[in-house]
């Protein structure tokens, strides 16, 4: 990589200790995100998208065991103490979620919450300046009449406006990385389009690296420069957005793309079965129990990502299957 990564993750593993046993939610994820790029992260429910990045942010509960490495600049986040994590969160890396209401304080004015975020990392700043900066931030994320709106409470904001407030808080300290976990899933498409535009503008104007977690392949196609597909706690394929959509070599990615509704009324092609139970994920390639191309060798070693045609693919049969596309 020519530039220094904004975020660099190596062999990240997350295991939850539960009464039923160990849930192996993330099983060796490595990735780099460059300044100013959007990395799309897709995969079925439960594939470890959220947990990977919550682990990086130090936001998982105490039953989570985290191994591996996640670096922002020179700062290692895995195993870091709370003080370091607090400093990094909001300052270097910020995260926004699907449900902004639960992240906003209902009894504090919205402007005050944004100002608090500003002050948290600018200790010398006066309260007045922080309040002014808060209004500026609300304006940047496209909230009309930001001065008046700053004096209102979260419940007086619509879903789309709340998500804008979350973005304003997230960018308050000009973070290197913005992790957006399903930021528009709860919103209507017309409002989704507005929020995606805000995120895109921030990336362009501030050079923020964006990790965009979503179920929606359309959102990825629109926003991402590169895409990584997750399955059962691992990255199974990664590529630039065009290659992923048009030259995928992983049977899971291809299945995902093929299962989308078609224009006509012909039958759709679901991926048979359901995602695995992460208490006991299948050996070898976890997708093999649902894969039409599974062969005995798929139960062997867990496949690593290797460059096939235009994508990095974690499938032992990818080279052979390439001929079948």
């Amino acid at each position, binding site marked *: 990589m020519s530039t220094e990564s904004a975020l660099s993750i190596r062999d990240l593993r997350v295991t939850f200790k539960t009464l039923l046993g160990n849930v192996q939610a993330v099983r060796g994820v490595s990735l780099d995100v460059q300044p100013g790029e959007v990395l799309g992260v897709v995969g*079925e*429910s439960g594939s470890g998208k959220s947990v990977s990045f919550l682990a990086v942010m130090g936001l998982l509960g105490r039953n989570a065991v985290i191994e591996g490495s996640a670096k922002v600049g020179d700062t290692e986040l895995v195993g870091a103490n709370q003080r370091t994590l607090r400093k990094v969160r909001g300052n270097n890396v910020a995260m926004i979620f699907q449900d902004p209401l639960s992240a906003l304080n209902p009894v504090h004015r919205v402007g005050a919450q944004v100002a608090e975020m500003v002050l948290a990392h600018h200790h010398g700043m006066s309260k007045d300046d922080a309040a002014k900066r808060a209004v500026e931030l609300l304006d940047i994320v496209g909230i009309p009449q930001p001065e008046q709106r700053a004096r209102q409470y979260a419940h007086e904001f*619509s*879903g*789309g*406006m709340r998500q804008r407030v979350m973005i304003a808080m997230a960018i308050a300290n000009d973070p290197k990385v913005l992790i957006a976990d399903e930021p528009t899933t709860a919103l*209507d*498409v*017309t*409002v*989704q*389009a*507005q929020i*995606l*535009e805000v995120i895109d503008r921030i990336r362009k104007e501030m050079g923020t690296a964006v990790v965009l977690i979503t*179920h*929606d*392949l*359309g*959102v*990825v*196609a*629109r926003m*991402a420069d590169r895409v990584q597909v997750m399955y059962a706690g691992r990255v199974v394929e990664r590529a630039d*957005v*065009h290659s992923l*959509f048009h030259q995928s070599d992983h049977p899971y990615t291809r*299945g*995902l*793309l093929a*299962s*989308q*509704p*078609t*224009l*006509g*009324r012909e*039958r*759709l*092609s*679901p*991926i*048979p079965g*359901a*995602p695995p139970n992460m208490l006991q994920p299948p050996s070898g390639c976890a997708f093999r129990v649902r894969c039409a191309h599974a062969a005995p060798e798929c139960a062997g070693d867990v496949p690593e990502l290797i460059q096939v045609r235009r994508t990095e693919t974690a499938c032992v049969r990818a080279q052979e299957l390439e001929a079948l596309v």
Partner: protein
Amino acid sequence: MTAPVVEVANLTKEFTVKSSHGLRVIRRTVHAVSDVSLTVPSGKTVGLVGESGSGKTTVGRCILRLIEPTAGSVKFQGTELVGLPAKDLRKLRRSMQIVFQDPYASLDPKMTIGASIAEPLQIQKVEGNHQDRVAELLELVGLAPDHARRFPHEFSGGQRQRVGVARALALNPSFIVLDEPVSALDVSIQAGVVNLLQDLQEQLGLSYLFIAHDLSVVRHISDSVAVMYLGKVVEVGPAEELYSASAHPYTRALLSAVPQADPIVERERQRIMLQGEVPSPINPPSGCRFRTRCPMAQEICSVEEPALIDRGQGHPVACHFAEAVAVTLGSNVSA
């Protein structure tokens, strides 16, 4: 032309909500559904789309009379349901069912799958062996008969939605309201449930009202589609035509906002960006309810409400400038 299963005419539903301002309690009216008419032909699927709060669920619930319409008429196989005595309604209820969005919340966690599916049979006091019927229904929706003894938490989202469908089919209905039946499912699982719904329709001659905000699923499954905005139907038409040649600015904006799973298309297409969000149904805008966000609005739009007019193509549109939409907003770029 097949005879319609459901005919809705001028359906209106208003809710009264109370809010307290100091000592005063203020009552306000939510105009959830206003003067909606639509027809579901026998054996066909009518899609109902629109953003959240546009009134889709309320229309579905009014049709089944799960809630009482404020005004208007709902005919089921020719029988007027509005005002029908409870005892007659109960008989008809067998023929009309509903499947909800949330496969997690819609099943009782303490009941076995078999008991959940058999519940409507018991409520309606259907004779015969319920266990056999449950086994038959499970097979019909692609599950195994021995699943009957298991509990909801042992099932995935897609399987639970299949159970929801089996339950809805228990009484041999002819019409089902599918209220966002696949919205909570991953696309790879959703495809299987959509196939199932289409197969069942063919096998059993069912008619569907398919409610969804996902326009691409609706396009795939529907024969015709009605688009709602803030309690009103703004456009109705054959599915293909609506997507390829819609004549309402809102439908166009909605279609252009849906991201498509193709990076080339996504990066080249023109979008109609709507400003702001849907206004409150407590105080909908005068004239055309869409005018506050409409890129084509003129003075007349705030004064006069556009009627839903069929301009001769079997494709009614409620816009003063329907004829100009294609020219002003360009050719359709659809989901």
